[in-house]
């Protein structure tokens, strides 16, 4: 790791995104105080995570990647144990289980929970001390899409309680839907930090319109639109590429001005995945 520098604001969901092995977990563990950075400085809630780790751990909640609990610990026992580990008064464990949809499972052994239930239990443990900052490391990895969406709702709920959330993910969709701001990390370096929308606007301004028309004069008209870079035609289908957010408006304007009849119309807007590809030259899934 080197040159990792960022700030997380109060009350936001901040995401550290990058492929596996990019250094997300290492960074997060340094911030949590369970790993010692070789150099550099970190401040969390005004504390030095490594030297004041116990003070810090009183005030943060942590969910670790791929952590397990004792196979045969019951859900309520885990919550009860965790509640006893903090100096300050913990939140009501039973209510927490209820809010996380685990109340039916309170007497179940950890080993008998589904992947989604385990993650919800880990969220409960991360929230039991009413922390000011919550750390979530690859929270939804290995979950099916439905469980993933349910977890996203819960994370938004954490922010609504006024807490700061710091998460890592290698899922661009997750970052895009959940995070207020993201830092893209690769090979131990942060490449850029901003809101997902601004990252896309900055790095991938290109827009694409795909439409079908039988109008013979269409191709000529499309080429005349300002900032259009290419028009490709195959049979009745046109693919119009250009840059800038105005491209779509310009295309629509051109269609209506020239009374071009279209039978299909859609736009392709780049997302974080494209930003990542552009910045790193490779897909996050590689």
């Amino acid at each position, binding site marked *: 790791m080197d040159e990792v520098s960022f700030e997380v604001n109060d009350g936001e969901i901040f995401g550290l995104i990058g492929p596996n092995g990019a250094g997300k977990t290492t960074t997060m563990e340094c911030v949590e105080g369970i790993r010692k950075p070789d150099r550099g400085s970190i401040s969390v809630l005004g504390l030095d995570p490594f030297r004041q780790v*116990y003070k810090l751990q009183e005030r943060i909640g942590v969910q*670790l990647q791929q952590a397990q609990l*004792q196979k045969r610990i019951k859900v309520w026992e885990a919550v009860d144990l965790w509640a*006893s580990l903090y100096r300050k008064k913990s939140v009501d464990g039973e209510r927490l289980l209820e809010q996380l949809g685990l109340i039916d499972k309170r007497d179940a052994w950890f080993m008998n929970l589904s992947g989604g239930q385990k993650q919800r239990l880990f969220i409960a443990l991360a929230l039991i001390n009413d922390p000011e900052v919550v750390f979530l490391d690859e929270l939804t990895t290995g979950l099916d899409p439905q469980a993933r969406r349910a977890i996203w709702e819960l994370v938004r709920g954490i922010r609504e309680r006024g807490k700061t959330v710091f998460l890592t993910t290698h899922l661009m969709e997750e970052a895009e839907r959940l995070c207020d701001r993201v830092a893209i990390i690769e090979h131990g370096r942060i490449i850029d930090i901003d809101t997902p929308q601004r990252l896309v606007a900055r790095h991938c301004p290109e827009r694409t319109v795909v439409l079908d028309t039988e109008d013979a004069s269409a191709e000529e008209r499309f080429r005349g639109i300002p900032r259009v870079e290419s028009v490709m035609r195959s049979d009745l289908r046109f693919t119009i590429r250009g840059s800038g957010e105005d491209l779509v408006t310009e295309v629509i304007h051109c269609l209506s001005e020239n009374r071009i009849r279209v039978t299909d119309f859609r736009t392709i807007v780049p997302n974080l995945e494209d930003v990542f590809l552009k910045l790193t030259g490779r897909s996050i899934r590689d």
Partner: protein
Amino acid sequence: MMMRGLWKLTWIEIKVFMREPLGAFGTIGFPVLVFLVVGRAAGRNIAAATPATSSFLRVGLPVLASLLIAVSSVLSLVTIISIYREGGILKRLRATPLRPQTILSAQVIVKLILTGATLGLMVLAGKRYYPVNVHVPLIGFTIALMISTLSILSIGFLIASIVPTARFAQPIGAAILYPMIAVSGLFTPVNSMPPVLHAVARVLPMTYAVSLMEGIWKGDSWWAHMGDVAALAVVFFVCTALSAKVFRWE
């Protein structure tokens, strides 16, 4: 506050352990069973009791059974620590205000409690089914067993620090600990061993554990065995200090 955490963690670890299919039997039942079965088998010949059989029944076997209790506790500790490490449980516990030493102390306390409970069960079962009547200073012997267990547990931590994966924990632990029993002087007096084995026995803690437990069982004074206690204490401190250096949390 930390005491509350320690107590809670210890209690949960006991409950979790008792829920293991083989947990209770492996640690508590097995040594007691060995004690009774071997005792009764040897006891059949009690009519033709040679002094050797008699002494084995009176001292050797109870001490062997107690040592087995200690060793199975230690093996179970090694296994649990390596499973917890592999599953990230140790790491997860460390990401709380719990101190590292508290997390490990809870495991040690669990093992000491189970060792004590097994000894109690052995004494109770022995009163009823053991072929010879044995009078022992029970409190003294319990303390001797606890000291021995603690010392061997510290070796367990060292083993737990070096085993690569949980799968190897039990076999590696057994391969290190059981041979120690063989040369502990329980079967052959240390003084009549060949020089090499004698030297080996002298540096192994098991030898001192056996000497201490046999002595206290027979009614020796603690003063006569201060050397054994000191040796066990040295092993404990050396192994604990070493583990503190090399112990891996993940």
